[in-house]
């Protein structure tokens, strides 16, 4: 596998995007009501591959849809016929442009869950059929803290192609995987200016240094992991969760939250079963048949969310469930910052 880097300029990058959109089923951030969401695009003017993180929804729904039909059924006098839905989640190859590092990292996190004790074949096929083209941010936004977490932002393998806007005004398009090399050779770019990794490496490093220096938020995730694992019973959780309104937005916009619920849409004798997002901040999330709820108080649900992100997931898979994108914080109606809260709790 040879890693290739294409060097071009802003105009070349626009052409690259145009070629991708013309030749592939492409998903990119599309603005509606002031918020960007990944949607199928037909030309570049509809979308903005460099949309700000704070205003962009995660690309998670393209792999783990907000609602997916998992089966349909017909009730007859002889019994119930269950069948596959006609919706094929896996149709064709597709390309996602405009994903950020944090979003790409989230896919690595989700991969572990969905290939764990039960293999989610729908998810897996969506992943295999998708080429992820990721852009490295130039500057950290207000609530970003990706560099403070346990992944190497500089070398992330969930993405297939990485685009870096170098400080020298040039744009570096780098293939990061076999899929990425294959994709770059599929006629989406006519650029012949290809340099070796060493030559491009220096400029990419420089860009990364400037990028990582722009972070307002910095923390030591190891001490957070360690402290949080010891303070399950601290009353501080009650304090920090007091102003949460349990609105669930944080979980719905989070690129790594992966809990879901099952519900039916039924008309007369036929019905469709859906798998849709759920949130542990919901009072009824842990409500059991018979009425018992092991997490009746808000602070317990809040603690579950924080602990799952920074302790439980880490114990099972060796990584944090948080990617530091700050989407939960920017979407929070009362401006609660997860960064601030976990640091306060584990003080």
């Amino acid at each position, binding site marked *: 596998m040879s890693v290739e880097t294409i060097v071009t300029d802003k105009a070349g990058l626009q052409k690259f995007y145009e070629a991708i959109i013309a030749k592939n089923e492409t998903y990119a951030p599309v603005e*509606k*009501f*002031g*918020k960007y*969401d990944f949607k199928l695009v037909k030309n570049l003017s509809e979308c903005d591959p460099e949309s700000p993180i704070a205003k962009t*929804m995660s690309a998670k729904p393209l792999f783990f849809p*907000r*609602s997916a039909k998992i089966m349909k059924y017909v009730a007859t006098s002889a019994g119930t016929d269950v069948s596959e839905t006609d919706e094929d989640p896996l149709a064709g190859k597709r390309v996602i442009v405009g994903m950020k590092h944090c979003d790409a990292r989230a896919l690595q996190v989700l991969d572990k869950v969905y290939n764990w004790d039960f293999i989610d074949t729908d998810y897996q096929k969506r992943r295999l059929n998708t080429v992820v083209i990721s852009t490295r941010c130039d500057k950290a936004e*207000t609530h970003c803290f990706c560099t403070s977490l346990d992944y190497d932002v500089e070398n992330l393998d969930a993405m297939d192609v990485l685009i870096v806007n170098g400080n020298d005004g040039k744009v570096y398009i780098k293939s990061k995987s076999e899929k990425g090399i294959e994709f770059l050779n599929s006629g989406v770019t006519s650029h012949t200016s290809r340099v070796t990794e060493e030559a491009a490496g220096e400029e990419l490093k420089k860009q990364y240094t400037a990028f990582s220096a722009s972070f*307002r938020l910095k923390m030591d995730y190891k001490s957070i992991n360690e402290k949080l694992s010891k303070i399950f019973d601290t009353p501080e959780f*009650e304090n920090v969760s*007091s*102003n949460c*309104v*349990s*609105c*669930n*937005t944080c*979980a*719905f*916009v989070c690129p790594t939250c992966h809990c879901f*619920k099952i*519900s*039916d*849409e*039924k*008309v007369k004798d036929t019905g469709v079963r*859906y798998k*849709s*997002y*759920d*949130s542990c901040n919901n009072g*009824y999330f842990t409500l059991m048949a018979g009425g018992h709820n092991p997490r009746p*108080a*808000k*602070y317990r649900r809040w603690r579950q969310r924080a602990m799952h992100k920074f302790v439980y997931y880490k114990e099972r898979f060796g990584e944090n469930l948080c990617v530091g994108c700050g989407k939960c914080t920017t*979407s929070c*109606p*009362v*401006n*609660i*910052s997860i960064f*601030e809260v976990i640091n306060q709790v584990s003080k």
Partner: protein
Amino acid sequence: MDYTKQIQEIATRLFAEDKIDVFVGYRLTGFDDNQVPALIRESKDVPLLVFNQKSVFNLSNYLKNDHTRNKRVGLVVKGCDSRSLNLLLTESQVKREKLYVVGIACEGVVDDAGQKMQNCLECMVPAAVVYDELLGEANMERRFIINADIQDMAAKELVQRREYFEEVFENCIRCNACRHSCPLCYCAKCCIDQETATLYNGANTTSSAFHALMTWSLHLAGRCVDCRNCEKACPSHLPLHLFHKWNERVIYENFQEHLAGVHEGDRGAFYKYSMQDPDDFIM
């Protein structure tokens, strides 16, 4: 509009006189001028409290909170907040004697970009209507404005309106943040959470979003006080105020200029009968 000092003094006094268990106000996020609601339980935390034009969130939402239930609460309310508080009192959700209300004669709050919020420009009741103590001068005369969004919507053909709202429902992700952040949505079991119901299944489909949002907005018709907590909470930035402002206009025009929560004990347009109610649509 900066009442930080006065509110801190009031909170200190209330804690000293042991009149409250918790004081609900605002504090700074700590890194910018945005604010976070703060539930202060000890007098040593009182210096955190602030109040200025960035104090946006309607705090009466916290009266259904675990931390305030069955406690004596000090609360800061602006005009719209006090109207929702009034409705909560009327609907027996909170007890007046358990509350110490600091009313604000509000001059309007600003959004993240520093622009005055649209609902503040159209506000009919800027000063708190329920209070134990009022900060600022309540002397602003206002008149009912049908805002530009509603005028545009009214000018559209039904088909166009349908197209517009289909887009709204398509962009809804069914997180129900609008419902949770609404101070007047306090039902212990909400119909849009009914997982087994045909219309309101939890799926994120356009039809379930339609049913959930329409039911929600109709349940708030004649009760919504236009505080825009829902719109601030919406992660998709949906123009949720359109539902409520439309209902508000219809009710204002047809039900003796009724505005939700302005008068104590007023049960709302849909909850009372009056001889003056229009009946010309009855055959």
